[in-house]
């Protein structure tokens, strides 16, 4: 009897999580389309429901009802497994992400480790999707995804490690509680930036949307997918976006903590605070999407290996020194900001970004009359 109750509890938890995440994804789709629309001076969806609020639902229904086209040359088993291999890890990490104090499905002591370990798995799905589709664009996209995701795991993990060192814990609850006095974004702006950029690359968002690049490999690993299978990739992508934003908030921006908020209210109001912060971070991700062009794969790799990886190691070393010698927190922030500023300056200098260098000349023949004579 107790076994049945236990299983029932678990299943209902999973279903609840799935439903919650689906709702979040639908809202994200709406927010993204609306926000991008406003950035581009459009209106975004307006027809289905008030302000197009039901547009994502309509899209979802359309996707599920759509015929699932299958090319005769695909490797069937791998082709069917690939979406799940992408979706399940992105779903699983939500087991341990808390949305407020004590509101979490399973509070793990190794929470961050678990999240990192699971999120890496989605690479397999992307490569499998690219390979099984028997499409050359998909293959290119799959390999791009593999290269990109693996190389950006390292700075991501290193940035996470910096936080873990500060908090002396891998438990997300604990990490947030540690940010009671000041958020880690103040101590580790460098870590925040590295985590955010690497996170963007992990979820394949602009300017790192290289594996699904529409104008180059026309959707990358997802070219051949349609209907419900495609929508699973889509779901995973948005869940990952939400996860990266949520992790940024939890690790660097104080999670559900808000100055002036204390006592029992934290648990309930904290949910709202957490979601507000997360959606703000997500809006920044969408803002980037509306502004930036896309990097090329080799530029992405060199940016990752030559800049982010050394910087993330530097961050770890700095954090270590800070912990070991007991530096004041403000010194850490100043050093971090200095490093950031010098990197900015170096990049600007490297790109030689001055208008003087980068302009075309306006050529004007001296006398028009001579020219006219000819």
């Amino acid at each position, binding site marked *: 009897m107790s076994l049945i109750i236990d299983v029932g509890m678990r299943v209902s938890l999973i279903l609840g999580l799935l439903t919650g995440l689906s709702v979040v994804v639908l809202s994200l789709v709406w927010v993204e389309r609306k926000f991008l629309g406003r950035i581009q*001076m459009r209106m975004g969806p307006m027809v289905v429901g008030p302000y197009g609020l039901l547009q994502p639902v309509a899209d979802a229904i359309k996707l599920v009802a759509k015929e699932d086209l299958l090319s005769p040359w695909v490797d069937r088993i791998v082709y069917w497994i690939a979406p799940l291999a992408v979706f399940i890890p992105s779903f699983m990490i939500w087991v341990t992400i808390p949305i407020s104090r004590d509101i979490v499905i399973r509070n793990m002591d190794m929470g961050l480790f678990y999240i990192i370990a699971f999120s890496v798995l989605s690479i397999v799905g992307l490569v499998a999707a690219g390979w099984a589709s028997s499409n050359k664009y998909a293959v290119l996209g799959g390999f791009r995804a593999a290269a990109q995701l693996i190389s950006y795991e390292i700075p991501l993990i290193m940035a996470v490690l910096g936080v873990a060192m500060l908090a002396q814990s891998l438990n997300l609850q604990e990490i947030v509680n540690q940010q009671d006095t000041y958020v880690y974004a103040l101590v580790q702006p460098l870590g925040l930036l590295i985590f955010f950029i690497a996170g963007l690359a992990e979820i394949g968002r602009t300017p790192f949307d290289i594996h699904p690049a529409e104008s180059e490999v026309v959707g990358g690993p997802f070219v051949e997918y349609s209907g419900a299978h495609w929508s699973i990739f889509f779901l995973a992508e948005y869940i990952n976006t939400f996860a990266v934003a949520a992790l940024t908030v939890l690790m660097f921006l104080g999670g559900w903590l808000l100055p002036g908020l204390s006592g029992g209210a934290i648990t309930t109001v904290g949910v709202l605070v957490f979601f507000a912060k997360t959606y703000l971070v997500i809006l920044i991700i969408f803002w980037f999407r*509306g502004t930036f062009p896309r990097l090329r794969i080799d530029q992405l790799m060199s940016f990752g290996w030559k800049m982010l990886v050394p910087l993330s190691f530097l961050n770890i070393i700095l954090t270590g020194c800070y912990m070991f010698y007991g530096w004041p927190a403000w010194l850490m922030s100043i050093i971090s900001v200095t490093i950031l500023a010098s990197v900015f300056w170096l990049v600007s200098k490297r790109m030689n*970004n001055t208008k003087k260098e980068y302009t075309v000349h306006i050529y004007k023949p001296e006398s028009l009359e001579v020219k006219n004579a000819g």
Partner: protein
Amino acid sequence: MLGNLKGLLVTLSSMLRKPVTYQYPKEHKPIENRYMGFPVLMWDSQISEPYCTGCMVCVRYCPTQCMTAVMKDNPLHAEGVSKRRKIVDSFEINFGRCIVCGICVDVCNFDAIEMSHEHELSKYARNDNRSDLTRLLEMGRKYQEETDWKPKTNAKESEEEASS
């Protein structure tokens, strides 16, 4: 890095401005006066007959051969009501072929054909846009009402020119 920040500012500032969208099926972009939609035939409401005499000059000059016209003796002329000796019997324009160049209007001596403001002609079948005389005149009357259309040349002179 400065370029990136500038770009972010541009997108942010345009987010705060009003969208420029026209919500198309509900809200139409105003059509300019000169807009050339599909060619339609004009209706002479004084004598209640079409201006077109079926002289086929537009048919000959159409670059895509999208029109046909047939001429007949005008019964109203015999009664003395109308000054047109010949009148159009049947006229057909295939709007699927028409490229809206306006040459037919340029060559017409009777102000019988005009570029209307009609441009939303989606139909379900491929040949649903082959328009016969009735439909063309109907569209023409709609255009005449819309724009308060007046014939450009004196119809009388042209009438004589055609009959000669």
